[in-house]
């Protein structure tokens, strides 16, 4: 299409650009795995993406360039706008949303290829259909995950025979897929029915899963989308898509395993166990909740020698990270050692709390994860729990009948005193009672995270 270049040269150019893109993606991901170079990593991956996208306009024999540009602008600007203005706390659901879009795109490619049918070799037909199924499930599943984290869906829908129904829908989708592959059903309606079944399965699979498990599910769908992209890459004979998709597929699978492991559960357990259904199983807790006012709590911390802060989702919701860091600095200036203890699944994603604390400017060296900090709680005068619940519930250690039994927790109950900042007397995301709150050395400081911490700061300042 460009007179000075022969088609062979253009093809080489395209292949070289895709090679570079694949290389930059891998190098970028590699850099993103260490805090120092992480920022550079995403820029490299971005350069790879830009090169690959621009060169694709030279692809031989293409038309619909107007539609193509319009589509890129519409999707790109909408995503740019939403990504820039969304609050840090809403990042997990945005990842889910964009991931779903990628799955949907992979499914759309498959749909276009399947409707072209007849041109596809058997292996390509199998991969196109498999990619379509995975991509469509990732699309509708991710949208449900987004809706749940965004608070658009609050209930986890569960009913009798749910697993059987899910299985039935999945099998139906599979049968349709096989019919398409062997060429018995290739009309637009057949393909539409196949996609409809896959989309319904994605919804059904995700609705019963509780919000606390969403990070694992989002990570799983991220891996799904990667795999779908790799399959469609094979159909389109596009090495950049095959490599990038496969790398994400395997990396996402590993990440999913790491997250599930942090909760001491398997992936299938997360997907099929109907976690939280037995909300009564937490059983009765003896003792009562003992409130404390901010001034007393402030004194307790200001005259202690060590305070360990345990942040949770409540801190994210209240956007309290800046205030929390202000409080920590105030305590440090009085000679108190302050540390932050991060549970692997605190918040809605692994590392969620780290991101928020980093945003507030908390240095890495006072942030510790579960293995590092658990032995230190015994030496702490105060464990300050801000909006965390299930991750500090000692029932996970002590009560075999508890739904969260066996989950590794932060041993906040071993500190000399525990102060819990909590909005009200409600239960955690898993819906079970927290024995920590009823312990003799625990005091409850009720209030919105940010405002409660502000009161603590006030209380400590008036001590001078």
């Amino acid at each position, binding site marked *: 299409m460009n007179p000075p270049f022969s088609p062979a040269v253009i093809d080489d150019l395209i292949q070289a650009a895709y090679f570079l893109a694949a290389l930059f993606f891998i190098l970028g991901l590699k850099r993103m*795995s260490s805090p120092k170079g992480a*920022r550079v990593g*995403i820029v490299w991956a971005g350069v790879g*993406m830009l090169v*690959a996208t621009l060169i694709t306009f030279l*692809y031989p024999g*293409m038309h619909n360039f107007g539609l193509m540009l319009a*589509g890129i602008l519409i999707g790109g600007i909408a995503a*740019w706008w939403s990504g820039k203005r969304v609050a840090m706390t809403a990042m997990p659901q945005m990842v889910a949303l964009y991931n779903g879009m990628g799955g949907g795109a992979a499914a759309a490619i498959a749909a276009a290829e399947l409707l072209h049918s007849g041109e596809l070799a058997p292996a390509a037909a199998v991969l196109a259909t498999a990619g379509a199924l995975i991509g469509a499930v990732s699309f509708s599943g991710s949208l449900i995950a987004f809706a749940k984290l965004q608070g658009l869906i609050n209930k986890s829908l569960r009913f009798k025979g749910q697993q059987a129904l899910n299985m039935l829908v999945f099998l139906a989708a599979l049968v349709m897929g096989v019919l398409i592959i062997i060429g018995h059903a290739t009309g637009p309606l057949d393909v539409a029915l196949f996609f409809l079944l896959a989309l319904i399965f994605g919804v059904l699979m995700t609705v019963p899963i509780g919000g606390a498990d969403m990070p694992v599910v989002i990570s799983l769908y991220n891996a799904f989308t990667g795999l779908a992209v790799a399959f469609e890459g094979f159909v389109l004979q596009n090495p950049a898509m095959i490599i990038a998709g496969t790398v994400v597929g395997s990396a996402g699978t590993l990440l999913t395993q790491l997250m599930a492991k942090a909760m001491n559960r398997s992936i299938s357990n997360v997907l099929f166990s109907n976690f939280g259904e037995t909300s009564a199983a937490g059983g009765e807790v003896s003792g009562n909740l003992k409130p404390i006012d901010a001034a007393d709590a402030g004194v307790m911390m200001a005259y202690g020698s060590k305070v360990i802060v345990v942040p949770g989702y409540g801190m994210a919701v209240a956007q309290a990270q800046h205030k929390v860091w202000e409080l920590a600095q105030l305590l440090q200036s009085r000679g108190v050692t302050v540390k932050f203890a991060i549970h692997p699944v605190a918040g809605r994603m*692994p590392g969620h709390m780290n991101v928020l604390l980093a945003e507030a400017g908390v240095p890495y060296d006072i942030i510790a994860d579960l293995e590092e900090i658990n032995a230190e709680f015994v030496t702490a005068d105060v464990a300050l729990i801000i909006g965390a619940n299930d991750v500090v519930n000692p029932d996970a250690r002590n009560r075999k009948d508890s739904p969260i039994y066996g989950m590794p927790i932060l041993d906040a109950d071993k500190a000399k005193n525990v102060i819990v900042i909590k909005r009200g007397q409600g239960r955690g995301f898993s819906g079970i009672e927290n024995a920590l709150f009823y312990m003799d050395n625990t005091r409850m400081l009720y209030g919105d995270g940010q405002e409660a911490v502000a009161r603590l700061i006030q209380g400590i300042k008036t001590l001078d």
Partner: protein
Amino acid sequence: MIDGFIALYIFMLAAFTGYEVISRVPVILHTPLMSGSNFVHGIVLVGAMVALGAAAGPVEQVIGFIGVVLAAGNAVGGYVVTERMLEMFKTSGAKQGKAP
């Protein structure tokens, strides 16, 4: 052409690469990394463009167009969100937090 065993080799090597690249990641970077890998599969945009470029009838054009819109959203949104997260991981120079 990438077919048969060549494709299998690529799948295998890329799968190990993904596994190895991720396996040494500190927990602190899990969310940004998930977001980063979410961006990387935004390469599906390239495929969506090719699919739309080859689309014949109106049905295929609509499907291809939807694919391009969704893929562009994946790529651009994935980049913006990841970049914003990583922006906060400034190197140790920024130890002292800003006083609110």
